[in-house]
C-alpha cells in the first residue's frame, strides 16, 4: 500500500485476454480507508462506551423538557376545567395554539373548519354531549358516544386539552353549514368572559 507512482507494469496474469496491471493502491484511497476505520472505532467508543447523556432516549427526554418549557413555561400545567378554558378563550395566541392541535388531531372527523364530517358540526349551537363549557374538555379527555369520539387524555398534554377546548368553544356561533346538519340540542351560551 505504498504511494509509489503508477508504473503500469503488467502482473503477467491473463484470463480470456484480460490482463492486469500491478499498480499500487492509490494513496488517497488507503488514507481514507484507514481513516474510516479510525473514525468507526472512535465513534463507537464515544457513543456506546462513552459518558452518560449521549443516548437517544436521553436526548429525546431533553428535547421534550425543552419543548414543554418553550410551550408552557409562562403558564405552568393547567387543569382542563371551565374557568381555565374560559380564560384562555380570551387569549388569541392560545386559541391559535389550540387550532394547531385541532388540525393535527381532530380534522379527520370534524372537518378542517370544524363543520363536521364523521363527527358533529362544532360551529352551531347544537351539542350532543356538552351541556356546559367544561364538558368540552371532558368529552375530549374521555371520549363520547361509545367510542365514536375517541378519548384523548393519553395523547394530549393537559394544556393542549385546554387550548383545543378553547379553540373548539370559540368555533360556536360561526354557524357554518356542514354535511350533517344540526345534532343534539341547543344549550345555554358559554359564560361571560371574566373581567380583568
Amino acid at each position: 500500500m505504498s504511494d509509489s507512482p503508477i508504473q503500469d507494469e503488467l502482473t503477467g496474469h491473463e484470463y480470456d485476454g484480460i490482463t492486469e496491471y500491478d499498480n499500487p493502491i492509490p494513496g488517497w484511497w488507503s488514507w481514507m480507508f484507514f481513516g474510516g476505520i479510525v473514525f468507526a472505532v472512535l465513534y463507537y467508543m464515544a457513543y456506546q462506551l462513552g459518558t452518560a447523556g449521549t443516548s437517544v432516549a436521553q436526548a429525546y427526554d431533553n428535547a421534550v423538557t425543552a419543548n414543554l418549557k418553550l410551550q408552557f413555561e409562562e403558564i405552568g400545567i393547567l387543569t382542563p376545567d371551565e374557568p381555565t378554558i374560559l380564560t384562555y378563550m380570551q387569549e388569541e395566541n392560545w386559541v391559535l395554539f389550540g387550532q394547531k392541535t385541532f388540525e393535527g388531531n381532530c380534522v379527520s372527523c370534524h372537518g378542517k373548519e370544524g363543520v363536521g364530517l364523521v363527527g358533529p358540526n362544532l360551529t352551531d349551537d347544537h351539542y350532543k354531549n356538552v351541556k356546559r363549557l367544561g364538558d368540552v374538555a371532558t368529552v375530549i379527555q374521555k371520549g363520547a358516544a361509545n367510542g365514536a369520539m375517541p378519548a384523548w387524555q393519553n395523547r394530549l398534554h393537559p394544556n393542549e386539552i385546554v387550548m383545543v377546548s378553547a379553540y373548539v368553544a370559540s368555533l360556536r356561533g360561526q354557524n357554518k353549514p356542514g354535511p350533517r346538519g344540526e345534532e343534539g340540542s341547543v344549550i345555554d351560551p358559554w359564560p361571560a368572559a371574566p373581567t380583568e
Partner: protein
Amino acid sequence: MTTTQTMEPTDPSLSKSGILERFSYDDQIVRMFLLATLVWALVAFLVGIIIAIELAFPAANLGIPYITFGRLRPLHTNAAIFAFAGNTIFAGVYYSTQRLCKARMYSDLLSKLHFWGWQLIIVSAAVTLPLGISQSKEYAELEWPVDIAIAVVWLGFFGGNFLMTLIKRRERHLYVALWFYIATIITVAMLHVFNNLVIPIFGGSLIKSYPIYAGVQDAFMQWWYGHNAVAFFLTTPFLGLMYYFMPKAADRPVFSYKLSIIHFWSLVFIYIWAGPHHLHYTALPEWASTLGMIFSVMLWMPSWGGMINGLLTLRGVWHKVTTDPVLKFFVVAVTFYGMSTFEGPLLSIKSVNMLSHYTDWTIAHVHAGTLGWNGFMAFGMMYYLLPRLFQTKLYSKKLAETHFWLGTIGILLYIIPIYVAGLTQGLMWRGMTEQGQLSYPDFVETVVRVIPMYWVRVIGGSCYMAGALLCAYNYYMTWRSRPATYDVPVHEAPALSKGYVDPPAPESRLKGVTELGHKADVWMQFKWHRKWERLPVRFSVWVLIAVGAASLFEIIPTFLIRSNVPTIATVTPYTPLELAGRDIYVSEGCYNCHSQMIRPLLAETIRYGEYSKPGEFVYDHPFQWGSRRIGPDLAREGGKQSHLWHVLHFQDPAQVTPGSIMPEYSWFEKKKLDFKSIPLRVNAMVILGVPYTQDEQDNAEALARAQAKLIAGEIVEQDGPTGLEDKEVVALIAYLQRLGTDIFKTPEPEDEAGADASGSQDEAAAGGGH
C-alpha cells in the same frame, strides 16, 4: 475454428501433462438468459410506471384489489431485483465464467434447470403477489413454497453448476470476476435461508406462514437480509460483470490487481454488518444501530475501490467512450455506482438518517443505484453480447446511442424530483413553529405537496422504459440477422495438472527494518493471495467465514441479550380476530406505505404519540415497522379514530381526508372474513411460543365471531352500516384499534413486573402526546 492456448509461465508442471483437451462454450444458455433479462426488464419497468401513476392518482387501480399499490410494489421490486437484475447476472456469469475457466459449464442439464426453475419462480411471484400472498418482508415477500424453490434453484442448480465448473476449469487461477461471483452465490444463499425461516400454516387453500422471529429480532434479520440483498445481489455480481466486460470492451488491462484484492475482501467483510442502518432510532438496541452506521461509513472506500478500478481501466481509451455505446453505458453505470456508494454511507449517518428515513429520499437513492448502476451495466452488457451471441453486427448503433440518452435523461427525471420530494417530506414532518408545535400538523398537507414530483417521476420512468423498448427492437432486429446455424468454436487447452508449485514468496523491499517489518512488507505485496486464487473451494470457505462470522457477531447478541427487549407486562397477544385482521394488513401490503414505528424524536411523538418500545412487538410475527411513510405512521393508531371513521375511510379515504392518496378498500366491507382459518393461525402462533390461553386455542373461531359482533354493533351505534359482523373490515378495525394501546393499560396489580409498565404508563400519560 479458434484455438486458444495460453502458456502459464509459472507452471513448471505444464510440460509434464500438456495433453490438450478440446471443448466448446454453451452460448445458448446465455442467449436464453439474455432474452429473459430483456423481457423482465420491460415487465419491471412497466409495473414501476403503473405504481408511480397510482401514487400520484390513486384511482388508477380502478378499484381492482389485485393491482393496488400495496400489492404491486413488491411485484415491482421483486421483478426489478430478482427477474431483471437476476437474469442479467446469470447471462453475464454463464458467458464469462466459461471463458475465464476455459471450460464449458459443468452440466448443460443444470444450466437448463436453473434457467427454467428461475423463470418459474418469477412467474409464481407475478401470480402470488397480486393475490396478496406475501410474507411482507421487503424483497423477501414470496411465501414459503417459492422460497424453497429459490433455495434449490439458486444453491443447487446455479451454485452447484458454477462450483463444479470452477473445479473442472483449465485456467489455473481465478480471475477477480469469479471471486465476486463466489461471494454472491454463497452470501445470497445464506441470507435467503436465514431470513425465511418460517412456520407454515397447513390447512385449506392457505399459502401462509409466520416467521420464527418476532418484533425487534425480525426487523434485525430482515434488514440484515434486505441490505445485503443490495450488497450481494445488486453489487458484488455486478462488480464481477464489470471486471469482465469493462476490460473486454475497452481492451485495456485492469488498473490494479492489488486494489482488486483489498477492495474485494474489505467489501465482503464490511458490507454484511451494515444492515442495522435501516433501523436507526427504532426500537432496535442502540449499539446495533451504531454498528450499522460505522460499518457503512467504513464501506465507502471498499465500494469506491471497484469504481476507481473500473474507471481507471479506461485510462488511455476515453476517446472510445465517445463512440462506443457499450462503454458509454458502463461509464455512466460505474459513475452512478460511485454516487450511490457515497450516498449510502451518508444516509447511514444517524443525524442524516433522522431526516431521510421513511421519506422518498431513500427511493431516489435506490433508483440511482438500480436504474443507473444495475440497469446501465445490464444494457451495456447486452449491447456487448448481442453481436457476439448472434454472430452478426448490432442492428443499429444509433438506436443504442438513443437508448443511452433516453435512459440517462429518464434517470435524472426520476431521481431529481424524488430527492426534492424526500427532502420536502423530511423537512415538513419535522418542521416546528416558534411556539413549539408542528408546522404541518395535518399529515396530508405533506402528501399533497409532493404529488407534482410524483408526476415528474412518471415522465422519467417512461423515458427510461422508452429506451428499453428501443433496446428490445434493436435486440429483435439483431436476432433476425443471425446466421442459419451458429458457429460453435472448439477451443483447446490443457487440463490442470496436479503438483503445481507456487512461485516463491517475494523478497522484502525494505531495508533496515525488523523481521516483522519485512514480513509485513511481503504480506503487503499480496503475492500470498495468488495461492488462494487457485483453490476455489478454500476460497469459498474463506468467503463464507468472512460473511458468516461478521453476521454472527451481530446476530448472537441481538438474540441473546435480554436487556435488548425489556418486557412490558401489559403487552399481550392479539385476539384471534385481531390476528386475522393483522394477516389481512400483511397481505394487502399496508407496510409499503405505513410505518408502525414511532422514533424518539420530538416532532414524531407530537404527531403520533409516545415512541415505540421494543417490548411492544414481542408477538409481532412478522414485524410491520415498514420503511416508508407515504401515509402516516400507525403504531399508535388504536383508539385514535372511531370504528365508523375507519369504515368510511376504507370506503373512500378521500371522503374523510381530502387530498389522501390512499386507494379505496371498499371490498373490505363486502368480502367475508375467513373465520374457519383463524384457529389455524392461532395454533401456528402457539408453536412460535405466543402465549395464547387454552380457551383462545380451543375457541378461537367463536371468540373471533363474538368480538366481530361487538365491533359491528358499535359501528351501527355510531350510525354506520349494518351487517358487517362477518366481513373483513371488522377484523382490520379490530387490529387497528389495538395498535399501540397495550402500554397504556393498567397492569394486573399482583403482577410483579407490572411496576415497569405502570412506569411507562405514567410517563406516557404525563407526557401527553410528547
